[in-house]
């Protein structure tokens, strides 16, 4: 167990190191001056520090060492377009993205996995075929189109929900944690209740578009896992022991199927992040994805570098975390560690 954790810790740090190195090298691949790409300022305007000294002398390995230090202490440089500090930018934007993906994932988990179990137990029957066809349709929807379609129908034609943004401009909620629902709850705004409802109304469309695809994927994965478990010898063996089916389901089928689903979910993390970024752009959700795509449009190289680094670190962290969890929970996995 400790060894498993240690191994994952190692893996995380090595990956992190490679990513940081990559982001450093990226500054040389982008057009323009590498120093400008790294810091957002030309060399003459930089304060006199060992870091800038190393950059000026083109001692790149030393500069890389100082680059790692600067990343750790939060001086990530400034945006070449807006001139804003990148660390502040990212720390206000990242919670919005995490919020959106977390809610979408929770919805997808609570809808997709129970439905997957149901389909798995009824496999090769009408309910199964119906849900499989629906999920096939769902997973083959292009997400940008789905998001546009929802805005078109629900916001523009029916006028039920706001079409973009995170909160109406009427409510001025002070920035506290970055998670909007939590911020509203913590604030002492006179229209707190209304602001909360408004935030929820803004959240529905983007969350549903992301959850739509994730639900389909979770449903299919869970169904496959349940069907696989049902074909195992130990289920037949439990049946021959005369144990009622609901007990077999609770004790053997559910546990083994979920253990099989967990590592497969890790693979889905990067897809989820991509989808969140696309939906953020379309619904103008003020998150990291929207910001990063804007930076790409504007050739804001410092922002692209930091955005790529942050997004990839989040993906790696979550993926490794899920894999690690599945190793810890699954007693049969321990033997390989």
């Amino acid at each position, binding site marked *: 167990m400790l060894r498993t954790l240690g191994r994952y810790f190692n893996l995380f740090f090595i990956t992190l190191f490679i990513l940081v190195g990559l982001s450093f090298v990226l500054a040389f691949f982008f057009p323009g001056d590498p120093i400008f790409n790294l810091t957002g300022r030309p060399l003459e305007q930089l304060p006199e520090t060992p870091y800038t000294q190393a950059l000026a002398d083109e001692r790149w390995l030393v500069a890389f060492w100082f680059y790692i230090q600067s990343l750790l202490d939060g001086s990530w440089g400034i945006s070449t377009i807006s001139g804003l500090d990148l660390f502040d930018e990212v720390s206000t934007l990242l919670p919005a993205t995490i919020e959106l993906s977390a809610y979408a994932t929770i919805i997808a988990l609570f809808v997709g996995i129970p439905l997957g179990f149901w389909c798995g137990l009824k496999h090769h029957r009408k309910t199964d075929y119906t849900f499989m066809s629906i999920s096939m349709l769902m997973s083959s929807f292009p997400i940008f189109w789905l998001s546009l379609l929802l805005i078109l129908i629900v916001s523009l034609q029916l006028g039920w929900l706001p079409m973009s943004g995170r909160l109406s401009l009427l409510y001025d909620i002070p920035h506290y944690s970055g998670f909007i629902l939590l911020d509203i709850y913590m604030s002492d705004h006179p229209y707190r209740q209304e602001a909360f409802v408004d935030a929820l109304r803004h959240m529905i469309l983007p969350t549903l578009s992301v959850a739509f695809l994730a639900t389909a994927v979770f449903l299919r994965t869970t169904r496959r896992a349940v069907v696989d478990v049902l074909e195992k*010898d*130990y289920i037949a063996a*439990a049946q021959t*022991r005369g144990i009622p089916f609901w007990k077999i389901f609770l004790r053997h089928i559910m546990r083994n199927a979920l253990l099989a689903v967990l590592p497969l979910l890790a693979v889905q993390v990067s897809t989820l992040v991509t989808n969140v970024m696309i939906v953020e752009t379309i619904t103008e959700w003020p998150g990291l994805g929207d910001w990063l795509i804007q930076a790409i449009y504007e050739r804001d190289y410092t922002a692209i570098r930091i955005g790529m680094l942050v997004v990839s670190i989040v993906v790696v962290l979550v993926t490794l975390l899920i894999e690690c969890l599945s190793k810890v929970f699954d007693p049969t996995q321990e033997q390989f560690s």
Partner: protein
Amino acid sequence: MILLDIRNLTLEIESNGVLVKALDKVSLSICEKEIRALVGESGSGKSLIVLAISGALPPQWIITADRLTWRGQNLLKMNTSERQKIMRRDIAVIFQDPKAALDPSVKLGEQFRESIPDELINVRWWWQRRSEKNQIALAQLTRVGIKDVKKCLNSYVHELPDDVCQKFMIAMALVSQPTLLIADDPTRGMETSTKRQILSLCKSLNHNSDLSILFVSHDLLAISSIAHSITVLYSGQTVEDGPLESVRRKPFHPYSKALMDSAPSFRPELHPKSPLTALKGTIPTLQHLPIGCRLGPRCPRAQKACVNTPVPRTIHKRQYRCHFPLHIEAEENTVDNNEGENL
């Protein structure tokens, strides 16, 4: 008294849209205190028979039988809970691969406690049940000869060797004090000393507790050491059935003869380095089953009539299904034929 009586059990499986008879009119019966061996190659449908008896077949497979009864009660007409009750108390099954037949994610102790019938526990309060169940588990596991019982109960399947898992399966099967034990190839892939232990365990259970055993295997040596009677299965058809000794001495069906000849230990007259006899070819796959007698294409005695499925014929407590049997005169065969049809 006949415990389990199977007559003309047919199992149809859909394969690529076509119904295939995986089992074709299998007949089998087990009497009280009898050890019956069910012999056949891999792929002949032995395990399917076990699953059909225990009711663990996938629901989309079609089972039909003239008779499938347990002490006279029709198992096919029964509802699920009645069937579960019989499986829980009267019939116990051990599987050929103990590691696959135990849940990998649940500790063995919990699996054992789960298989103890409620009737066996007579304590007043629910918090006493767990320790009571543990007591039963300890006693049972010691009885089958597991050495480190505590460790076994606290382990997962993958942490234990195969033979311990198999003994654990046997202990789990016996805890409900069954009348019939169905052992599906319990000695597969085991070394000789473990095999002997398990066989002698079965034998002593049969001797001391009057347990009937359906011993499914292709290990003729193991069978000859414990079984009273034998049923030979080929490609989903029962080809011969009778007391072990007489089948061994005079097999009627060419397949039984080939089977007996394939075991060198059954033939003391065999000279060193003499070639082993075997039928040409392999057992047909489900997709390419021959019509009539399924041994037809491989049978050395096959003739034109073999494209029709032979009816079972009975002679001296023995049953066989063959048009041209060994050791029986042709006239005798036809006489029996009429008798078979009258049955």
